[in-house]
Each structure stands twice: as structure tokens, then as C-alpha cells.
């Protein structure tokens, strides 16, 4: 064993009680850091997962971000002509040539896409009226981009294929109308077209506004109702890698010209809130380790004072100031390593206990537990932070020890 390490260990075992208290500080700090941060990161990922799963990764809509370059600007490119207050033309009639664009998107690997025609309609049943969003879908493709199929409580999306006059509504709406599966209601579109439709499916997402206002019918039927034959106004896109959404959205928009918004762009505000939340959380959980490092500082300072004579004798023997500093840094490192080790074990235990805690989010019937993230990153972060604060805490006493001048001590002792 290195002589400096042996001296360090001797110092620590010589002050067993104080060392133990310092150690407990680190253990608790690491465990708390780990448990809280893994819970916070777990809930964050759970949240993002829900965000990502329940909404399309990319939505292509029949809008254009920038107005087209005007003929005058094309003619005089050097800025002789400037056209101001130009608004992009809104394509009220839906996405032009959608089949070709659809094929283009489908060709991108790892991408699933569903064409949708969305419009507003009014449902009437037994004298009551409710305004709803009516989405014309192709059940086969819709199922690949949306979790709606998993939220069906009665009937199914596929029933739409069997009954072209079928409609799928949310349980919230069904409760308002007080109707159930198999009942007929009247659908009136903005164009004035009206048709009797039969409820072939009921879903519950847990989101009240979706459950009360979202309805689905066949794309063909919606095109007729909204008088837009052969048109859609949305592509809903789901990716194998949700985090590639931003890049893929840019690629799609560049290729087809229609506005493509990724979930990242659509939820920028929420994501930035999560960053702030993480900053707050890490500062709080680090605080305990910082407090623990004061304990270590205190212990090592006491040892330095107590061992001034030993330090003087080591230096008179020929130990360098660096050797002495190393001894006390080793003491910090040893406390840090042992503290982290036990802290990680205790923290993992806490995480396991937390992951057994059941929670009841709205609209979910199955058992749900507190989300805990078991990522190695958390363990590494907790250890790194503990080690950093231990070494930092040891640094000042180590520097002071390195400066002990043997002659001053010898004169004092003589």
C-alpha cells in the first residue's frame, strides 16, 4: 500500500466516531440524491412518454409557413423590389395532391403516417346538440400512429370499416347524450350536410376535453360530409425514434412544403419548464451532499490540528508538502468512496421502495406505480457529485497540512 494511503487510513481509524459521522452524511446525501433525482427524472420521462405517445410525433397540416416568393422578387432578386405585409396563403381546401405526398413520407424509413381530414360538426341526439371535432380516418393507418385503439372501452375503430355510417365517440360525450353503443345520432357538418350515424365504438383517454369533443369516422365519409372529395388536411406521423422528430419534420417540410410540426417544437414551453424543474431538483439534492462535505471538512481539519506533530516529523524525515496534501486528500477520497458505495446501495433500496408505491392517475384503470428511472447516469452523477464534494472538502485541510513547517513545530515543542 502506498505510504500516504496508509497514513490516511490510520488517521481515519484513529478518529472512528467522527469519521463515521462524516461517512453517514455522505451515505445519506448520496442515497437521497439518487432516490429523489431518479423519481424526478422518472416522472419527467413518464410525462414526456405520455406527451410523445398521446400526440403525433409530427403533424403535417395544410398550412404554409412562409409566403411564396413573389414573381416580382424573382425577377429583381437584388432587392430593387420589396413586398411587405405578405401573408402566406392558407390552403383551406386541404393538402394538395396528398396521395403523392403520403407516398413520399411513407418511403422514409422508421416512419408511420396516417392521413386525416379534420373538421367541425354538430351532433344531435334526443334534442341535444354538441359541437365536436370530426376526424375522418383510415382505421388501418390510424392505429399505427395513435393510441386511440388502446383506449377503446367498447366497440373498435375497425368497426368503421364494416359500417361506413359508423362513428366512434368518447365516453364523455356518450354520458352527456346518455347513449350507448349501437345508438344512432345525427351529424351535421358546417356545409349543412347532415347524416344519421351509428355509434360503433366508445373510447376513454382520461383527458376530459378529448373524451367530450373528439369523434372519428371513415375518411371517405368525412370527405363527403365536408365536401372535400380526395382531400385530407392532416398527416399524423409516428416515428420509431421519437427524438428524431425535429430532424424528420424539417426533412418532410422541405420535401413537400406543408407545415410539419414535431412534438418537440409543439411542446417547447413544457420542455423548458422541465429543464428548470431539473435545475431546481439537482440544486436541492446536492445541498445535502454539500452539508455532508462540511462534516468532512470539519473532521479533516480536526485531524490536521491533532496531527501537526506527526506532519512535522514526516516532513523532517523528508516527506514533501505534496505527500502531506495527498494524505489528507486520500482521507477525503476514502470517505467519498465508502460513503458513495453505501449511499448507492441505500439509494437503490429507497428507489425500490418508492417504485412499489402505487399511484392513481385519472383515466387509468390498471395498476400504476411511481415512475423511477433506473438509468446508470443517475448512479454515476450521484457518485461523481459525492466524490467532488469530498475532495473539495478535503482540499483546504490538505493545503493547510502541506504548509506545516517542521521547524516551527519543533521550536514550539522544545
Amino acid at each position, binding site marked *: 500500500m502506498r505510504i500516504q494511503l496508509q*497514513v490516511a487510513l*490510520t488517521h481515519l481509524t484513529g478518529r472512528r466516531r467522527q469519521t463515521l459521522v462524516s461517512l453517514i452524511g455522505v451515505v445519506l446525501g448520496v442515497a437521497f440524491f439518487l432516490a429523489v433525482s431518479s423519481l424526478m427524472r422518472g416522472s419527467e420521462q413518464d410525462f414526456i412518454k405520455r406527451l410523445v405517445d398521446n400526440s403525433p410525433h409530427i403533424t403535417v397540416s395544410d398550412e404554409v409557413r412562409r409566403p411564396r416568393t413573389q414573381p416580382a422578387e424573382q425577377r429583381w432578386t437584388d432587392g430593387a423590389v420589396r413586398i411587405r405585409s405578405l401573408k402566406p396563403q392558407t390552403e383551406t381546401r386541404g393538402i394538395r395532391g396528398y396521395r403523392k405526398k403520403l407516398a413520399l413520407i411513407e418511403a422514409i424509413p422508421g416512419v408511420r403516417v396516417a392521413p386525416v381530414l379534420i373538421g367541425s360538426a354538430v351532433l344531435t341526439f334526443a334534442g341535444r346538440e354538441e359541437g365536436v371535432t370530426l376526424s375522418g380516418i383510415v382505421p388501418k393507418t390510424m392505429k399505427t400512429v395513435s393510441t386511440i385503439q388502446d383506449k377503446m372501452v367498447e366497440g373498435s375503430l375497425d368497426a368503421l370499416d364494416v359500417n361506413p355510417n359508423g362513428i366512434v365517440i368518447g365516453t364523455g360525450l356518450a354520458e352527456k347524450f346518455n347513449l350507448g353503443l349501437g345508438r344512432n345520432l345525427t351529424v351535421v357538418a358546417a356545409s349543412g350536410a347532415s347524416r344519421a350515424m351509428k355509434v360503433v365504438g366508445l373510447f376513454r383517454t382520461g383527458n376530459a376535453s378529448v373524451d367530450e369533443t373528439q369523434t372519428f369516422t371513415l375518411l371517405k365519409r368525412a370527405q363527403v360530409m365536408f365536401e372535400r372529395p380526395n382531400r385530407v388536411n392532416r398527416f399524423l406521423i409516428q416515428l420509431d425514434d421519437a427524438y428524431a422528430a425535429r430532424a424528420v419534420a424539417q426533412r418532410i417540410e422541405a420535401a413537400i412544403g406543408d407545415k410539419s410540426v414535431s412534438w418537440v417544437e409543439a411542446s417547447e414551453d413544457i420542455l423548458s419548464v422541465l429543464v428548470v424543474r431539473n435545475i431546481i431538483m439537482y440544486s436541492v439534492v446536492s445541498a445535502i451532499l454539500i452539508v455532508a462535505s462540511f462534516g468532512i471538512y470539519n473532521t479533516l481539519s480536526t485531524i490536521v490540528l491533532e496531527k501537526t506533530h*506527526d506532519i512535522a516529523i514526516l516532513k523532517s*524525515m*523528508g516527506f514533501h*508538502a505534496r505527500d502531506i496534501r495527498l494524505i489528507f486528500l486520500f482521507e477525503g477520497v476514502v470517505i467519498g468512496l465508502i460513503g458513495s458505495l453505501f449511499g448507492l446501495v441505500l439509494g437503490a433500496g429507497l428507489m425500490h421502495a418508492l417504485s412499489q408505491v402505487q399511484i392513481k392517475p385519472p383515466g387509468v384503470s390498471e395498476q400504476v406505480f411511481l415512475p423511477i428511472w433506473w438509468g446508470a447516469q443517475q448512479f454515476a452523477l450521484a457518485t461523481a457529485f459525492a466524490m467532488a464534494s469530498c475532495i473539495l472538502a478535503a482540499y483546504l485541510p490538505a493545503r493547510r497540512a502541506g504548509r506545516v513547517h517542521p521547524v516551527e513545530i519543533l*521550536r514550539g515543542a522544545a
Partner: protein
Amino acid sequence: MSAVLRAEHLVRILPGEVPVTLVKDVSLAIEHGEFICIMGPSGSGKSSLLYLLGLLDVPTSGRVWLDGEETSGYGEDDLANRRLEKLGFVFQFHFLLAEFSVLDNVTLPIRRLGRLDASDARARGLTLLDRLGVVEQSAKYPHQLSGGQRQRVAIARALANDPLILLADEPTGNLDSASGGTVRQILKDLAHEMGKTVVAVTHDASFAAAADRRIGIVDGRIDADWRAV
């Protein structure tokens, strides 16, 4: 004979509001294998001179040569390396590390120097303890030893890296006359039989009588320098 340790015009002044002069213009040449005694009244600067000769302290002015090498301008680490390799210290109070066994205390400088592996260092430590008659105590801790035994362990530790010079500050000052006599005899044998140079500060007249050379210090200066005939 070549001077193993030489000092020229050593001055050591403690700076402060009232500067204190500890050593005033001391010049001195110590030959290889000499057994030297430094004597003088209390507070005359004997210890201060010893720290300068032992490269523990740096003179305010003047120069020190150790083994033909001038040490002026050396940094703290260079001086520490010279102490580690060429010098050994014994103090009045034993200054053993209380939490280390006798053997570990002795092997400390050997391991810091790092020229011997662990088992060779151990073997050398035991040899030294044996030579000083305390090998049975090797597994004990300093507080379990008598004063004389501790001082012998301290001498063993000072000899650990086979130094050229052994510097001792009142090595018998804290011992009864019997163990003081043993320690004195050991130091004398080291000089006369092992060829070490021994420089010892002492108040003890019988100690001084055993020395080859006696240097008297008064008020920070060399007052007398006798050589035994």
C-alpha cells in the same frame, strides 16, 4: 578527510516586529565519521544551528554544503529529498507516530524513498531494530515502550535510509542516566564503528566527554571548538 557538512557565515534571523537573531555568523566544517557535540547555555541557539545544518531551516544568509553539494537556493522539495537520503534526525522527545507500530515507524522513510520493496523494507527495519536491541518490540506501539526504548526506535528510524549524518537534539535529555548512557554508547558506536557522522546537541557532560569534538555555542556564535586528542 573531506568535509561531509560545511557551513559558511550562517546567519538566521527570525523576522518580526523585533527581529530575533538565532544564529550569528557561524562557519563550520564537519568531517566524515566525526562524533560531534554541540553544547551551550539554554537559548544560545544550539537547536537553531542544528536545524540549519540539517536542512530543516533555511539561513537568512550564509551557505551550507552537504556531501560537497551546495544547498543554497534549493526549494523545499529539493531540501526534503536531501534529508530523506542523507540525513537522519533524533529529537529530545521521541516523535514517533503513535498510531504506527514500532516497525512501521522505522520503515516509514524507507517506503517514502521507495528503493526497497515492501519485504526488503521490513527486513531492513528489523535489522536496524535488532542492532539497537529493540527487535522484540517491533510489533508494539510507541506508548507500550519505555523512554529509552523509544529513543532507540527513533535512532533506528533516523538510520532507515542509511544516512551520511545523524543529527540529534538532546537525545538523552529526557532519559534517566542508565538509558541515557545506552543511547550515548549507541551514537558513539555509530560514529566509530559504522562510519556515520553524528552531530548531537547536549547538556549532558558525560555525553560531551565521549565526543571527538565539542563545539560551544554562546549567544548564537561559536565560542569554542575543541577536538579530543
